[in-house]
């Protein structure tokens, strides 16, 4: 099954990106275009999730998935923080910043997992997009609390604003709502762009993510063996917790696998920017190298397959 994953064009383009960066090729995707693709991908998955929920309606499943997602995002940073300070040897500030990343999620990992699962006939529930949006920012609160424990932060309002008005939260939730309002019929005229073109764009975006991840790893001067190990152990633990939680609340295999992949994934969009702002003393070299340089490729190439199989065993 990992072979299936590894021969899908989507993953192959990611590997091409990694390869190009490692051989020091000057291949580069213009940043404006990469950003545009990430906006497109978020709008597209938001829309599709909203349409699916418009079809199926608000259900108890949706509500329990939302609650479990929120809890995972809020609580996973505590476990990560303990490991990062004790095993990783990080100080409180850096550990809190890294922990926030691992409580939050990676949109691209989610999208890639959804594509691969769907390609294997395992479609996760439409509301998982809402869970994705819900899991993005609560971890920021936990991470900051861990980093600043005892010290009152003066900037509570700014933080709440960051949690709710963050660009990717607004875009995912906004597109989700538009999908619900427009429904299947309203979606029809915009389908060619948002549905048909989706996988191709994902290929090009993962090519760029491969370049970015590998360059981050090459240029990093902040990683040591312990942090590298933690950047693989944390997704393994978090992902297993996620799959277990999903199975326990009665999710289908595909959705439980997706919840595991969300838990395993680490943010590299919403959280780094928030941490740079709210915890400027934390070292961005550590959290970006771990989440983007190691955990992201690990999840794309191995994690997605692994948690899908785990969900199959448990479900």
């Amino acid at each position, binding site marked *: 099954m990992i072979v299936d994953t590894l021969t899908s064009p989507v993953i192959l383009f990611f590997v091409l990106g990694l390869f190009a960066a490692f051989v020091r090729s000057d291949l580069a995707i213009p*940043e404006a275009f990469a950003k545009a693709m*990430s906006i497109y991908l978020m709008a597209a998955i938001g829309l599709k999730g909203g349409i699916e929920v418009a079809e199926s309606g608000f259900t108890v499943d949706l509500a329990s998935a939302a609650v479990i997602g929120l809890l995972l995002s809020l609580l996973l940073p505590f476990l990560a923080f303990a490991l990062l300070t004790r095993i990783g040897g990080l100080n409180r500030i850096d550990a809190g910043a890294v922990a926030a990343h691992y409580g939050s999620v990676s949109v691209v990992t989610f999208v890639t997992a959804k594509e691969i699962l769907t390609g294997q006939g395992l479609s996760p529930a439409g509301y998982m997009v809402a869970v994705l949006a819900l899991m993005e920012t609560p971890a920021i609160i936990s991470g900051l609390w861990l980093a600043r424990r005892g010290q009152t932060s003066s900037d509570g309002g700014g933080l709440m604003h960051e949690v709710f008005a963050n660009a990717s939260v607004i875009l995912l939730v906004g597109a989700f709502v538009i999908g619900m309002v427009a429904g299947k019929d309203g979606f029809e005229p915009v389908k060619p762009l948002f549905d048909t073109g989706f996988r191709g764009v994902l290929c090009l975006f993962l090519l760029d993510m491969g370049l*970015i991840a590998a360059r981050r790893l090459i240029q990093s*001067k902040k990683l040591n063996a312990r942090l590298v190990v933690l950047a693989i152990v944390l997704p393994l633990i978090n992902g297993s917790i996620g799959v277990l939680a999903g199975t326990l609340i009665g999710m289908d295999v595909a959705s439980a696998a997706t919840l595991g992949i969300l838990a395993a994934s680490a943010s590299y969009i919403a959280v780094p*920017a928030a*941490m740079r*702002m709210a915890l*400027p003393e934390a070292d*961005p070299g550590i959290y970006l190298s771990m989440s983007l340089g190691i955990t992201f490729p690990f999840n794309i190439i191995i994690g997605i397959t692994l948690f899908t199989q785990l969900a199959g065993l448990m479900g």
Partner: protein
Amino acid sequence: MIETVTRKRIEILVDTPLVPRLLKHARDVDISGWSLIHVDAGGGRDGAWQQDDVTGAAAKTIILMIANENKAQALTEAIAPFLNSYRLLLTIGDVEVVRGEKF
């Protein structure tokens, strides 16, 4: 001949997410204007970086401000404590401007 006066040209290289925080300091010392210059890439003790719109956190920007000596001094005092923890690069040079009362 047009009369010119000497003012300070302040350049601060800073991580893009921190720009609003620094502009707040600038407003606090009554600096009236600022411009953000696009930086593509760089390198230093902490390794190299490139502009990167996707994650955003790795991007840096130059804040350019023209101000009189007092304001420049006040700004330096205000942000000196963070120079290290925020990884700022602050330089101040002399320039001639026309109609110096603006700054």
